[in-house]
């Protein structure tokens, strides 16, 4: 073997000329570079910018900082971390955030794992039905449950319509109605399906022959669980825990709805308040903190997953799924699952739905029922004098939701599929690696921090790009960027399955790049494309964080519309709007499941 490359007789110029000639025949590289440029602008630039803002004097803060706008300053850092105000504006919200995130993570892990085991590994009654029912909360926006909670358990601390409990004569203390307790509860409910999906999948992959092999060698059931099942499940458990934690620290809507009345602040709500009060520098610090915690957590997850690969379970040949008989636990276990379905699905959705057809909350008399809030006209209210289905505000908001989120999702889906194509086909490894990473990056950044980052970058004109704040454009761009992780994962996994032979054979048959795209790749990937569009669509429709920061009344969408209704105490109408959002999300998810035939879990992993 020649040690030194024998291509040495070629000059670098010759090699480059040859490469250039090849690149001219294939636009893959060019498209890859184009995509990189787009994502650098949409994803990397806002995040880098927000980190710079932390150290830059903001317009309006010249007096406070004693420096001109645009100059370097440590003022915001000092104010947040080390001023007299710090304990109120930062340390308390940080503590609340950690309290809520960690507690709801632990609770959902415990309950979710038990349910996953019951569904996957035992002869639980009605498994099939329960495994669908228990996942439903995952398809709904988290704040649906927060609203349901206030509908049921709101007390007299704040005005407006009382909760059902109040109306029925029960005086609830504040800690039940608002703040940490309900926030933790709702977030736990929201994350349980996530645990069921991830842990359930891992359990499903775990060959029960591994357990039986342990039993054959004389290990007791408990011993098997402790020495075989738990170690093998640990990566999945750790991974779900970290993903939940990373998501929880950025959660905005639940603490916003439930924490506001008792000044229960988390980092996300503080960030929102800072932006609302024009403290952009402080907002940047909050965004930076959420960002750093989120990235650190997910980096930890990636690192641990890599470690976990070391004991990837070998061979699925003849993998068997054997269910354990629950024996006398059959009934209690089934009841537990049913109770979870009731608390997680039936009660909140039922309460919301009922509240929209009742004049006064919690009073179950025939005369109290009405369809006014849906289809009434000339109602006795200051604003919104028609039922929501007859009000132009609702339809306008619905239309902007669907058109903005829809067009962004279509773009994200196409970009996602293209990203998948380039990641797998790029002749330059650097292009595919950086594309894969940059499109996944928004996943590491909680929505609220990302929205804040977008605001700082695009609120002011940059070069040829005008200021976009207040236009649907900024929402559109932010949605695309925010949804790229889902869209690109869908694209990459679809393209991975396709393999290059199918395209190569078209090349050999004489098809150029465009022809291959339109005659081969796109038709084969039709379902993947639909998924890559629908997944961002659902997630965008139910999302709150981006809209609450970037939308203005002129670009009202369903989420901001309903939050405004909540703020103005139009409880029934707000609940009706939220129900509509939940319905769209639910049906969209069912549609994806039908199309892909695989179920949700795939989209969550990787």
């Amino acid at each position, binding site marked *: *073997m020649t040690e030194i490359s*024998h291509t040495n007789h*070629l000059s670098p110029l010759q090699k480059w000329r*040859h490469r250039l*000639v090849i690149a001219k025949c294939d636009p893959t590289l060019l498209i890859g570079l184009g995509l990189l440029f787009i994502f650098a602008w949409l994803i990397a630039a806002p995040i880098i910018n927000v980190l710079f803002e932390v150290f830059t004097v903001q317009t309006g803060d010249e007096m406070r900082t004693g420096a001109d706008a645009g100059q370097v300053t440590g003022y915001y850092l000092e104010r947040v971390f080390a001023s007299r105000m710090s304990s109120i504006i930062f340390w308390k919200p940080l503590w609340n955030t950690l309290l809520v995130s960690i507690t709801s993570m632990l609770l959902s892990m415990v309950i979710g794992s038990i349910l996953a085991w019951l569904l996957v590994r035992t002869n639980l009654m009605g498994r099939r039905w329960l495994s669908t029912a228990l996942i439903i909360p995952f398809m709904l926006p988290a704040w649906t449950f927060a609203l349901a909670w206030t509908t049921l358990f709101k007390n007299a601390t704040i005005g407006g319509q009382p909760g059902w409990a109040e109306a029925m004569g029960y005086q609830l203390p504040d800690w039940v109605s608002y703040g940490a307790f309900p926030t933790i509860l709702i977030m736990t409910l929201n994350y349980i399906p996530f645990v069921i999906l991830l842990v359930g999948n891992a359990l499903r992959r775990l060959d029960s022959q591994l357990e039986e092999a342990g039993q054959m060698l004389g290990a007791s059931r408990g011993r098997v669980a402790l020495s075989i099942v738990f170690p093998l499940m640990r990566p999945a458990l750790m991974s779900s825990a970290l993903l939940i934690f990373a998501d929880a620290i950025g959660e905005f809507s639940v603490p916003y709805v439930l924490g506001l009345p008792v000044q229960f602040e988390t980092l996300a709500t503080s960030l929102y308040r800072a932006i609302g009060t024009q403290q952009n520098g402080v907002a940047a610090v909050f965004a930076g903190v959420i960002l750093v915690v989120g990235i650190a957590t997910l980096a930890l997850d990636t690192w641990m997953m890599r470690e976990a690969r070391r004991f990837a379970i070998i061979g699925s040949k003849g993998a068997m799924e054997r269910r354990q008989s629950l024996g006398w636990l059959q009934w209690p276990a089934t009841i537990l699952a049913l109770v979870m379905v009731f608390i997680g699905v039936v009660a909140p959705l039922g309460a919301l739905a009922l509240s929209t057809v009742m004049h006064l909350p919690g009073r179950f008399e025939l005369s109290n029922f009405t369809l006014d809030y849906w289809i009434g006209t000339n109602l006795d209210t200051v604003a919104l004098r028609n039922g929501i289905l007859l009000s132009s505000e609702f339809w306008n908001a619905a239309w902007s939701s669907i058109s903005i989120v829809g067009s962004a999702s279509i773009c994200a889906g196409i970009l996602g599929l293209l990203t998948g194509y380039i990641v797998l086909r790029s002749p330059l490894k650097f292009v595919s690696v950086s594309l894969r990473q940059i499109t996944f990056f928004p996943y590491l950044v909680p929505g609220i921090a990302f929205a804040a980052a977008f605001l700082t970058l695009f609120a002011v004109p940059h070069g040829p790009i005008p200021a976009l704040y207040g236009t649907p454009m900024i929402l559109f761009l932010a949605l695309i960027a925010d949804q790229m992780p889902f869209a690109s994962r869908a694209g990459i996994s679809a393209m991975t399955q396709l393999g290059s032979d199918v395209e*190569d*054979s078209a*090349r050999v048959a004489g098809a150029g790049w465009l022809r291959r795209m339109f005659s081969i790749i796109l038709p084969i990937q039709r379902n993947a494309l639909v998924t890559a569009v629908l997944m961002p669509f659902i997630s965008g429709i139910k999302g709150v964080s981006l809209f609450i920061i970037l939308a203005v009344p002129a670009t009202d969408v369903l989420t901001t519309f309903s939050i405004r209704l909540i703020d103005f105490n139009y409880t029934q109408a707000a609940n009706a709007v939220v129900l509509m959002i939940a319905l769209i999300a639910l049906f969209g998810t069912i549609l994806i499941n039908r199309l892909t035939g695989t179920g949700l879990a795939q989209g969550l992993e990787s």
Partner: protein
Amino acid sequence: MSNITLNNISKCYTQGHPPAVDQVSMEIQDGAFMCVLGPSGCGKSTILRMIAGLEHLSDGEIVADGRVLDNVAKGLFIPAEKRQIGLVFQSYALWPHMTVARNIEFGLRLKGLPAKERKKLVAEMIVMLKIEGLEDRYPAQLSGGQQQRVALARTLAMNPGILLLDEPLSNLDASLRLSMRAELTRLHQEFGTTIVFVTHDQWEAMTLATQIAVMNKGTLQQIGTPDDIYERPANRFVAEFIGNPPINMISAETKPAQQLMHQAGFSMSVSEGTQLGLRPEGLQLSREASSSSVPVTINDILPTGGAWIIELTVDQDETSPLNLVHTTQTPPLWQRGDQANLKVASHAMHLFNADGKRQPFALTPKAATYRTSADVVSPDFSQSKIEDIS
């Protein structure tokens, strides 16, 4: 209808790593049925993909019919879609969203043929490859053999001057392999197309090809007819790679080796590190001992259905046992543990020097008078190009 010339072609995927293909040159004649044979990872598929234009060269030149397809030094490259070379993939790579008829028609559409002509050609191909009645099926509804026929039909419909096949028989079961082998041979004769195929399977190579190029670790080891390759392996790698069970390789300096060379009439003086290869079917066992035979013990007899594999140990004083494998088509009269006497036919013996290169045998003066085989005295290298393995 076409010839292909590979001039010192190399492919280096990662800088600093050994190249996947290292300065390979070969001339593929018009109408040849050439096989590139080698173990997996030897660079044979890369060669095929470079001819097709799906990979580009790192160095060297590919010319087909006087047209330069790829030349690094001159900065020339013609992409796959403009080469008009047919390639049948190992996975067949049928387009899953098109029916059989559409699959075959796709390339013809790209050529801009009118509908009527396309239809006629498709119908012809369907008859020729015996896939009638499958026109409206989707690839997923076809068996492996049918898929391969469709893949072939799709490629042949384009009437390429050069047809490349990637492991054409390896995905088929035993009976399909036989019929597909016959099919490919028939197509080669009927169309006169230049066919190049790659495989790791020596059976596939020996039965199909008129010429075989043996590759290892990116370098070309030998080119020749199937018989050349088997009977006159250019080096130790080729000798050991071809043949099943593999050739017995023993040090030529050992006493038994010397004795076997002597009984075949060869001179016993060999340089250090020389290895003696004995094809298993060339071993001869007998009960009668002669002065030149080597005593052996039968270790085991394995029936393989119509043939037998006999494992032997040479009886000698040395500490490490010398094991040999013998194959025979006649039912063996031996029992496990029997003593026997071994001779080896001279044509089944091959000598390789310390570098692994084939070395001609020298004859003892007595033998030279009646042995005239050109192979023995001066091996015929005119048909074989030899590359150094090192």
